[in-house]
Each structure stands twice: as C-alpha cells, then as structure tokens.
C-alpha cells in the first residue's frame, strides 16, 4: 500500500518535471525573440556608452567615460573647467514635466470618456471603443501635422477665434511647451482611455448606488468609491502614457520646433548632427533609468495610499 502511494508520488513528480521542461521548451521561441530584440540592442547601447566617439559619428573601440560625463557635465572648450550641462538638465526637466502634465491631462480627459463608454448599453460600447481606436489607423506623423494644422497661427482654431472677433491677433501656441503637451495628449489619450475603461467596466455600479444611499454626494462617491476602485486602471493608463511621452520624439520635433527639445530629440541629435554616439547611448540609458525609477516610486506610492491591487 505504502509502496504504491510512494511510486505514485514519484510518478507524479516525474510527470510534473516533464511538464515544466515542456513548458520551457514551448517558451523558447518567445524567449529567443525577447532576448535578441529587447536585451540585445540595450546591451549594444550600454557597450557604446563606454566607448570613444568617432570623428564623423560612429564609435572608436576604446574605453572612455566621456559619454557618461557629458550627460550632466560639460567641459568648457576655452578654460577646461567642468560645468553642469544646463542644456541637458533643462531638457531632462522639460521632458519629465511635460510627460507628467500630459499624463494628468490624459487622466482628466480620459476619465469622463471612459466613464461615458462604460455606462453605455453593452451593445453600443464596442462602437465607442472603435471610435477611440480610429486614430491608431493613421500614421503618427500625419496625426501630429493634423494637430499642427489646428493650432498654428494661421490654423483652424486661431482663424475661427479671429473670425468671431474674440481675439485680435493669433495666440502663439506653436513652438511652445503647450503645443508639445497638446500633441502628446492627443496622441497618447487612447492609451489612457482603454485601461480606464477596462477597470470601469468591471466596476459594480451597485457600489455606487450603495454609496448614494449612504448619504454620499456625487463628488464624494467619485472620491471615496469610484476612484479607489478603478485605481488599477488609472495606474496602468498613467504608465502607458508617461513612458512613451518621456521618450517622445516626433511630436516635440514637429510641434515644439528646434528650441523646445525633449529627451528623445536630444538623443536623436547625438546620433545625427551631434555625431556623439557614446553620449547618445548614455542618454538613452539615463532615460531608461528615469523611467524605471519613476515607475517604482509611482507603483510603490499608489500601493501605499490604500489601493488593494494598484
């Protein structure tokens, strides 16, 4: 009797091991792609950031920390004094600020939109979601130029306002941080709406009724019941908007002009006109580090402030 159960458990264990091995085998293609496509380029970047910059772009295979130095420091060409690279720091700051503002704007616009969709009858929800995804069909560059067409001095909005005699001269939106923010909000808004909708759809609206019943006004129902319960969606949407905003490249280039650089443009500049590949590589890794630290802080914070599974 004991022998039988003993050998049975042996058999079970062997079967389980075999299954684990088979699962790994099944994962292999995906793992290979992941390692080659994600880690590979990253390792190349890391490697390049520790090399010397070539005269006309490219790298010289010699160890150097210049790339990393130049991320925050700059050596004055006349007196050889090290200074903080103000230009780089202001680009870092602008990138983080604009991405944060874009994320917040997306939450403010996305929340009522997602709420609207989630409260439609089940049949018509797909139609509204379909409308949200339509912009994805168009190339990012074209969408960005469409925004440009709206906000430029001779564009739709300014012309309309002037025709209505509301303003005497066009409002300068183009080539400002505001323009970048408007553009990025437009581009990344669906990435906020979709996760928000997903968590709102799961929300039990009877909880909202229960809160109304227990003397909560509309604003308090929102603050005390709806927002805490859909926090996973807010967190997911914020991450999805913040990360690509931080590295955004096309939108700031088109709408911000040459002056209002963001990190993506700065990096692109190093590989292009700047011909300083190690600096570009070091900046890329820095961007990655900023994203990771921000995410960690954000997720930790949103977990602590009451969400059960934020």
């Amino acid at each position, binding site marked *: 009797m004991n022998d039988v159960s003993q050998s049975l458990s042996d058999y079970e264990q062997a079967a389980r091991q075999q299954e684990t091995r088979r699962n790994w085998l099944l994962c292999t293609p995906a793992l290979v792609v992941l390692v080659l496509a994600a880690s590979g380029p990253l390792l190349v970047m890391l490697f390049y950031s520790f090399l010397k910059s070539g005269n006309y772009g490219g790298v010289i295979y010699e160890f150097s920390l210049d790339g990393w130095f130049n991320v925050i420091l700059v050596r004055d060409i006349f007196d050889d004094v090290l200074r903080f690279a103000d230009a780089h720091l202001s680009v870092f700051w602008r990138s983080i600020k604009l991405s944060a503002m874009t994320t917040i704007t997306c939450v403010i616009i996305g929340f009522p939109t997602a709420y609207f969709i989630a409260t439609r009858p089940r049949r018509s929800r797909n139609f509204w979601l379909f409308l949200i995804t339509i912009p994805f069909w168009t190339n990012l560059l074209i969408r960005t130029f469409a925004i440009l067409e709206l906000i430029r001095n001779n564009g739709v909005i300014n012309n309309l306002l002037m025709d209505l005699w509301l303003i005497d001269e066009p409002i300068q939106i183009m080539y400002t941080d505001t323009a970048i923010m408007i553009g990025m909000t437009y581009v990344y808004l669906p990435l906020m709406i979709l996760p928000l909708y997903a968590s709102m759809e799961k929300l039990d609206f009877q*909880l909202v*009724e*229960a809160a109304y019943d227990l*003397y909560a006004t509309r604003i308090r129902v929102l603050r005390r019941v709806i927002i805490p319960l859909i926090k996973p969606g807010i967190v997911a949407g914020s991450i999805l908007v913040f990360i690509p905003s931080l590295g955004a490249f096309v939108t700031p280039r088109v709408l911000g002009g040459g002056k209002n650089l963001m990190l993506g443009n700065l990096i692109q500049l190093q590989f292009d006109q700047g011909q300083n590949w190690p600096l570009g590589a070091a900046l890329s890794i820095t961007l990655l580090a900023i994203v990771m630290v921000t995410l960690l802080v954000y997720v930790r914070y949103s977990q602590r402030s009451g969400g059960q599974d934020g």
Partner: protein
Amino acid sequence: MADPVAISVNQVSKKFGHGKDAFFALEQVSVDIRENEFFTLLGPSGCGKTTLLRLIAGFEHPTTGHIQLRGEEISHLPPFKRPVNTVFQNYALFPHLTVAENIGFGLEMQDKPAAEIDSTVAEMLQLVQMESLRDRRTDQISGGQQQRVALARALAPHPRVLLLDEPLSALDYKLRKGMQIELKRMQLETGITFIFVTHDQEEALTMSDRIAVMNKGRILQIGSPTDIYDRPSHRFVADFIGDTNFLDGELIEANSEGAVVRLSSGKTVKTGPTDAAANTPVSITVRPEQAVLIEDLDAADLQGTVTNVMYSGTDSHFHIELTSKEEFVAKVQNAGPARRDWQTGQTVGIKFHSHVLQVVSD
C-alpha cells in the same frame, strides 16, 4: 390604535423605456407602511417589487404619483437626501474598505464627529455579533458575515426606514433560517420600519407584520400573514402562497357576513364575504389541509375517486378526481385524529367548514 404612517405610496406608476419598448413596471400602486412595521413586498420576479423598493430608496423616480415619508414629499429627492437605507441583494459592500469602515461609511458621509462614528460602529458590530472581525477586508469574510455587515452598514445611520432587497436569497437554508430570526429581533430592538422584498412566501409569512402581494406591477392584496393565507382575495394570491385547490361554483347570494355558493356537485356552501355579484360564476379556493375526507357521501359537499396517495412524513396527500372531473388535493396530518386509510380507487366524500372557503377574483 395603529402606528402612524412612515411611508405613503400614492398612485405611483413607473414606466421604463420609450415608444414601442415602453412598459409599466408599476401601475397605480398605493400603499401605506406604518412606523415600526415589518412590511413585506411579496411576488414573483418581475412583479415590480424591487422597482417599488428602488423608488422608495430614490434610485428611480416615479413616472406619476407621489411617495411621502412621514407626510413629507420625497419622490424627487436623490438617495443621499433620504433618511432611508438599503440592504442590497448581493450586499454591495465596499471591497476597498474594512468591515468597520464599511459600517461607518454612512455616518462619515453625514460628517458625524469621529468619536460618534466609532461608538456607533462598535454598537453596530455588537448588534450583528461581528466585533472580532472589525478590521477584516470584506472579501475575507463568509457570505453570512457579509450579510451582517451589510445590515449593520444600513442600520448605522439610524434610518427612518430600512429597505431590504431579497437579502437572504444568497444564503443557504440554515443560515437563512437563522437570519430570519435575527432580522426580526433587530427590527424589534431598533424600532425601525423594515420594508422587505422577497419572492419566498414562507419567509414572508414567518417574518412580516403585513404583506403586500404583487403581480404584474400591481398590488393585489395587503394584509397580515393570516389574512393573506386564509382569506386570499385573488386567485393569484391563493395560488402563489401555499398549496390550494380551486373549485368552480355559482354565487347565489352575498352580504357583508359571507356568501353562499353552489358547487358543481349541486350542494351549496357558505364562504367568506365577497364583492362578486349574485348569480355569476365564481372560483372558490380551499387549502388542502382544510378539507375533511369522510365516508358518508350524502353529508359530503363534494365526492370523488382517490387517484393517488402520497406520503410525505408529517402528512399524507390524497389526490381526488371529483365527479365534475376537477382535480382536488386533500392533506391529512399523519399524527392527527382524522381517518387516512383511503385507498386508490376508493370513492370518498369531501366536507368543508364554511369559514375556510373563500371566493377569489381572477
């Protein structure tokens, strides 16, 4: 001597949908619910009982008609302005709050001082015997415990009226029995008017002071459990509550004392009072346990042949085909004195006591 009216529902109709799809969930419903009363809305699903409850809670607003709370019009107040709380069918506890925070939610929203919230929450935890679980999350407690928290949460703000939407339907049989007794105890202890919605007739009969039986958006009869069971006014009421027999007959005469009906057998029987006009065909209802089976066919009101005998422990059920081809079921207590050794195929007489027969309208 009756208590004053807590909730007065006056000629309320509720229409859902528009145009072709429109239908009335409630039609011209009027009812007065008294203070300190355990009042039950009983009916099959889709009869409008939950709609009526939601109108009183304020989640819906009546299409026509008025709802008053202690004489004050509340039909168009939002839920958070009504001193009325609801226990939801699936409890609707806030999953992101603890047991104690759930119970204190209503008080917190009323901006009560923290000390008062704490003491009321403690009091409520004691009332529902949940003191030891105050800091648990609501998904870490059992269904029966969630039920108690939902009850405590709704009672904590001391509402004038407590609405209960089939609160026991998700519990298993034993827990349900226990909660029935507890609910009744809490109603007596708190003195709050309970309006209880259920489709379970047994639950309604055991717990209620008064019952309103609803069907298809209308209230058919309002009365005490004995009124409803012994003197059903409608065929639907008699059929929905308990088992019953219907017999065709013709009304000979009626007054405020009672009525005389001629049965299909030609015999006349006395029934309770009715509004039906004389010389019209009527249906009368009689409960299976209210018929006596006898051997003497001449003394019987009806006679027929036993077609089936079913033994069910406490009772025996005798299925009888009457001479008029109608089906009749008689129930005889096995421990009682009445004769019960009738065999299939045997001809028996059926005798009624006059006070148990009731004319019902369709």
